[in-house]
């Protein structure tokens, strides 16, 4: 008989953060936050690789949303949060120009804003920075659409002032060669609400780490994710909700489907309820659907609670194979197997798709899921 030695992980409260890449050691891949990531495929993002190209950033925004391109010295940058890993710090230390979108005080955007980020191209590496500001009582929907080839690391900040309402959909629909490591930092003001959805469909390695921190009481955060990994792809999502103030609500729901040899997905869901965060309500959930043999899903919810005075906290995680009983039931009603499979997978993603309020984006994702299922001949 052997006794497992459990080394307690450092509390999220004690994580080191810095804007400076040199403040972080180069990770070997054995560290807790890198242990699932295929470091060899990161093209040197973690070992100081210099930019060899640039991503193009195209913004399609309604007139009432201000769009600026600013340099590193802009005092507003960094207000959303501080990098908590070496690649994020590398991106922060390396970008030359940042895009800043501002939805002014009490402005309700008349249409969604789309930011299309096209990779630097095959064999090239680029760093980027984006900040989205929603001022007091502002309301807006922003779609981040990542496409193209190459290696890209960036930080995306969301700064929500009091009572702002921001809805974000970040789509990673990269070409097969692309590597993307992205840190999202959200700062949520008093009674503000962020709805944040990550959709990862394409790329060789995609690692997105959304962090949401409440700056004042009454905030509400919904982090959702939908991913579909094919053979050989590595898609990793690491969410962190930091409850440091009372009476805030967070909800995290990530769902993924995997198919093909060595398709690999990782979901790490950290929630920290600090001692001061009384009246917190939080729930996080991850579900993975393995459509074929040879795929692997890692799922780790971490819930740290430092006060007993909370409204509720919970988590759930489940990874399972395709349910043959569901298939049998649908087929027994005359529905052919391929159509039955599609119904079940579409049903699996249904609740997340319904959360996406931009109809064109929702339709595009539905079509993308259909295409994924066609590809495997499911």
């Amino acid at each position, binding site marked *: 008989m052997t006794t497992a030695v459990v080394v307690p992980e450092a509390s999220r409260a004690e994580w080191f953060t810095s804007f400076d890449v040199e403040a972080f050691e180069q990770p070997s891949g054995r560290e807790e936050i890198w242990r699932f990531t295929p470091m060899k495929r990161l093209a040197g993002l973690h070992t100081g690789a210099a930019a060899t190209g640039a991503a193009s950033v195209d913004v399609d925004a309604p007139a009432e949303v201000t769009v600026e391109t600013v340099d590193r010295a802009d005092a507003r940058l960094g207000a959303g949060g501080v990098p908590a890993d070496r690649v994020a710090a590398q991106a922060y230390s390396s970008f030359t120009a940042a895009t800043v979108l501002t939805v002014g005080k009490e402005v309700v955007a008349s249409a969604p804003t789309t930011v299309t980020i096209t990779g630097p191209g095959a064999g090239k590496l680029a760093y980027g920075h984006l900040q989205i500001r929603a001022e007091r009582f502002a309301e807006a929907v922003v779609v981040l659409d990542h496409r193209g080839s190459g290696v890209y690391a960036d930080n995306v900040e969301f700064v929500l002032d009091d009572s702002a309402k921001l809805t974000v959909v970040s789509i990673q629909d990269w070409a097969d060669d692309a590597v993307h490591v992205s840190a999202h930092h959200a700062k949520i003001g008093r009674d503000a609400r962020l709805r944040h959805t990550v959709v990862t469909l394409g790329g060789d390695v995609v690692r997105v780490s959304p962090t949401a921190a409440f700056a004042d009481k009454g905030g509400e955060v919904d982090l959702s994710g939908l991913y579909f990994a094919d053979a050989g792809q590595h898609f990793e999502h690491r969410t962190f909700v930091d409850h440091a103030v009372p009476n805030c609500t967070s909800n995290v729901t990530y769902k993924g489907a995997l198919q093909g040899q060595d398709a690999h997905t990782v979901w790490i869901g950290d929630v920290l309820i600090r001692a001061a965060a009384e009246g917190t309500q939080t729930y996080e959930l991850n579900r993975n659907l393995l459509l074929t043999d040879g795929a692997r899903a890692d799922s780790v919810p971490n819930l740290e609670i430092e006060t007993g005075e909370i409204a509720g906290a919970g988590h759930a995680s489940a990874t399972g194979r395709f*349910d*043959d*009983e*569901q298939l*049998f*039931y*649908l*087929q*027994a*009603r*005359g*529905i*052919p*197997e391929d*159509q*039955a499979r599609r*119904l*079940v997978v*579409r*049903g*699996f*993603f*249904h*609740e997340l798709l319904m959360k996406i309020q931009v109809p064109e984006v929702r339709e595009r994702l539905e079509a993308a899921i259909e295409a994924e299922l066609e590809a495997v001949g499911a």
Partner: protein
Amino acid sequence: MATLEIKDLHVSVSTDDGPKEILKGVDLTVKAGETHAIMGPNGSGKSTLSYAVAGHPKYEVTSGSITLDGEDVLAMSVDERARAGLFLAMQYPVEVPGVSTSNFLRTAATAIRGEAPKLRHWVKEVKESMKELDMDPAFAERSVNEGFSGGEKKRHEILQLALLNPKIAILDETDSGLDVDALRVVSEGVNRFKASGEAGVLLITHYTRILRHIAPDFVHVFAGGRIVESGGPELADQLESEGYVKYAGIQEAASAS
């Protein structure tokens, strides 16, 4: 006129100790217009028979044949069997999260009928069928069987029976878990389906209760993986008063083998 013919059917399931034979030579013919009741103790293989006819992958047919109007059912996939006119109302209907009942019903009807039903007629058809089964129209928007009570699931099965209108319907313990009112509503649904006289019904049940609502033409006693006695409705009455004691020997001998 439709005929389902089962001949010398042997079926096994795989277990940790290797394959185990459940059905040991079943012979049964169900014709359009007939209602057959299969009665037997728990574990006699009644449900296995229904799953084997529907084509559940867990059950392997090792010998014998099943034909529908002369066509080889065993050569068909599960969905082909349904499209050929077989229907199984399941004892434990499966939940399919995120798939709305209305979408499911329309997809199934499209598959069975070979073309999508015209939307206006279809909505009316579903509404009327639901009303006949005392189902709240709000069901249509809920996920298939998800959060349905036992009785609601059974009504939903009979709703599908009405809409898909098969040639031969197998009802696997449809009466289990139903209260008196629900049993009446569900039985009336089956009787409406039978009324055309063009469909055959195979009613699998442990109890005689449902047979007071749905009159069988033939009653078969199932024990030890096969039919051990057949007769008319009077056989059900006899089982009601005597139980399955008489067949216990066959059952035990079968499970010991």
